[in-house]
């Protein structure tokens, strides 16, 4: 007997060479992805790249403006903060916290959100009702307030920040994955798989999941951008890692206090945060366009 496997869009979309080629031709993916890669290298190699110790204080050179302005201190390219610490070195080290949070928090949020989303989208009434209600309750909290509340409960620190982001943002991914799963479940290949007697778990994870992955990758990237901002907000409020560790949000909070004396202490980390957020977003947009068979058509 000649059996042809049900044609799944996953075969067409996720064949690696085709995808890689398509991504390499998308300027959004190349530029934004390149920037994030650069950021990762900077974060990993921070001790080698940073011109100064990010914690070294020198009150004699405090609030020196960036290079090119009058009274600039040579060697301090982006100036110094209120305690005379090098702004550039602090931004370089701050990238470590931001990226750690981006990858770990977004990864876990994605894992939990997509698992629950797949279940709600395919397992039917009870799972769907329970998970949807849970999502609704979650969405009734202002996210910033909920994250501050969670960190206050869990205690400050990197682990708490990551946990808070995961606890809040799984809903965002869950809703999209649920909708996508429900749409996929109507497709012919799922009907075919059911007809030849695949178990529900097999259909969900071997047939539907690969088709949801493109959406998931784009969502994951967008979520990383959100996680970077949430970490900055928590640092700004003083609830993230201890003040010994440089963070962009912490620098922004200090810069906000002395903005009239030394605007660069606020402007520099804000620009770094802005660039990282835009890069994650553009990468997510580009990935969504390149990977999503529907959008591509």
């Amino acid at each position, binding site marked *: 007997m000649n059996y042809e496997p049900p044609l799944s869009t996953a075969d067409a979309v996720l064949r690696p060479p085709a995808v890689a080629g398509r991504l390499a031709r998308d300027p959004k993916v190349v530029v934004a992805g390149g920037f994030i890669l650069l950021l990762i290298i900077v974060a990993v190699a921070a001790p080698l790249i940073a011109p100064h110790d990010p914690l070294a204080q020198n009150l004699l050179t405090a609030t020196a403006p960036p290079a090119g302005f009058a009274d600039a201190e040579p060697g301090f390219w982006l100036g110094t903060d209120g305690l005379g610490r090098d702004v550039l070195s602090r931004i370089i080290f701050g990238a470590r916290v931001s990226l750690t949070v981006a990858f770990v928090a977004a990864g876990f949020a994605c894992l939990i959100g997509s698992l629950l989303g797949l279940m709600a989208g395919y397992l039917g009434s009870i799972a769907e009702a329970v998970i949807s*209600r*849970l999502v*609704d*309750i979650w*969405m*009734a*909290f*202002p*996210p*910033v*307030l909920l994250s*501050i*509340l*969670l960190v*206050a*409960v869990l*205690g400050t620190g990197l682990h708490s920040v990551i946990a808070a982001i995961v606890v809040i943002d799984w809903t965002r991914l869950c809703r999209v994955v649920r909708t996508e799963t429900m749409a996929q479940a109507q497709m012919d290949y799922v009907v075919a798989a059911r007809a030849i007697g695949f178990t529900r778990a097999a259909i969900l994870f071997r047939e539907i999941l690969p088709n949801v992955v493109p959406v998931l990758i784009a969502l994951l990237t967008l979520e990383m*951008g*959100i996680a970077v*901002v949430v970490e*900055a*907000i928590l640092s*700004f*409020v*003083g*609830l993230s890692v201890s003040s010994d560790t440089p963070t962009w949000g912490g620098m*922004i909070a200090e810069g*906000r206090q002395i*903005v*009239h004396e030394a*605007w660069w202490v*606020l*402007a520099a980390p*804000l620009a770094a*945060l*802005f660039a990282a*957020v*835009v890069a994650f*977003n*553009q990468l997510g*947009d580009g990935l969504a366009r390149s990977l999503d068979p529907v959008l591509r058509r």
Partner: protein
Amino acid sequence: MLFAVLVNRMVLALLTLAGVAVIVFVLLRVVPGDPVAMMISPGASEADIAALKAHYGLDTPILTQFWIWIKGVISGDFGTSITLRLHVTEILAARLPATIELAILALLSAIVLGGGGAIAGTLMRRTVGEAVIDGVNSILLAVPDFIWALALVLVFAVAIPMLPITGRIDPALAEGFSTRFYLVESIITGRFTVAGDILSHMTMPALALALPLGAVIVRLLKQSLKEAMVQDYVLLARIKGFRELRLVLQEALRNAVGPTLALTGVQFTFLIGGTVIVERIFAYPGIGNLAIDAVINRDFPLIQGLVLLFGLIFILINVSVDLMVAALNPRLRHP
């Protein structure tokens, strides 16, 4: 039909609110920090601490505390703030108007900016102008209110110092108000210098909140407008010799605005969530700024009241959006 939608949504809303109440209550009871420890002087005796705990009902079992709180909430009594020593209801009533004025000003700004951007983009479709609007908009869509707020500080308080950086009103002018709706009251009573001062304080926070929502409106409304512009009724109006601007405003907009209206309603809840951090940045005396202080000070009754208030606002907005969409949908209007 509309009534059925209303009842259905109300029941779900109450369930959600109950869920919010339980979650915030349980969360706060596992907080390691002790609120009483923060309000006593170092020399207080064990008996003093116990008396204080008893006063705030913190010495009873959790279920009893929950029951007492829920009974109070239903009768409109949210308890007493531990740090401010005032009734939570009083504090919320004093702070809420500031946030309502800010959120509504931001919403109106977003509608004006977003609607203007979408109409301009539609008029300039398939030209460089549209590409510029799309390019700027993709950045506006990506960047959150937190970053805009601080960028505005750099522009309008440092580079071109023209706007006040903190507060809601110049303290010297904050007298003679009979309500807490300072902006509305000063406009109604014709005190325009006072209104101008309040507006100058609100410009930066409102703009920071409006930009991301405005970007969402531009994207969706421009899409709908472009779809409407190729419909037969627009073609007919074009044949009649109507000008392009009139085609967009009079023919296309009316038919294209529906989906944007629904989305704007939903996105309005995100804007209100954003007031928490934006009020903090500008030291604006609304409920968002209050919420951060309440959490940092572990003021249980105040946090509980605030979270329920936010939950209630979110749910009310969602229900009104659903009703508005249902009312606008002719298939639901005539069963």
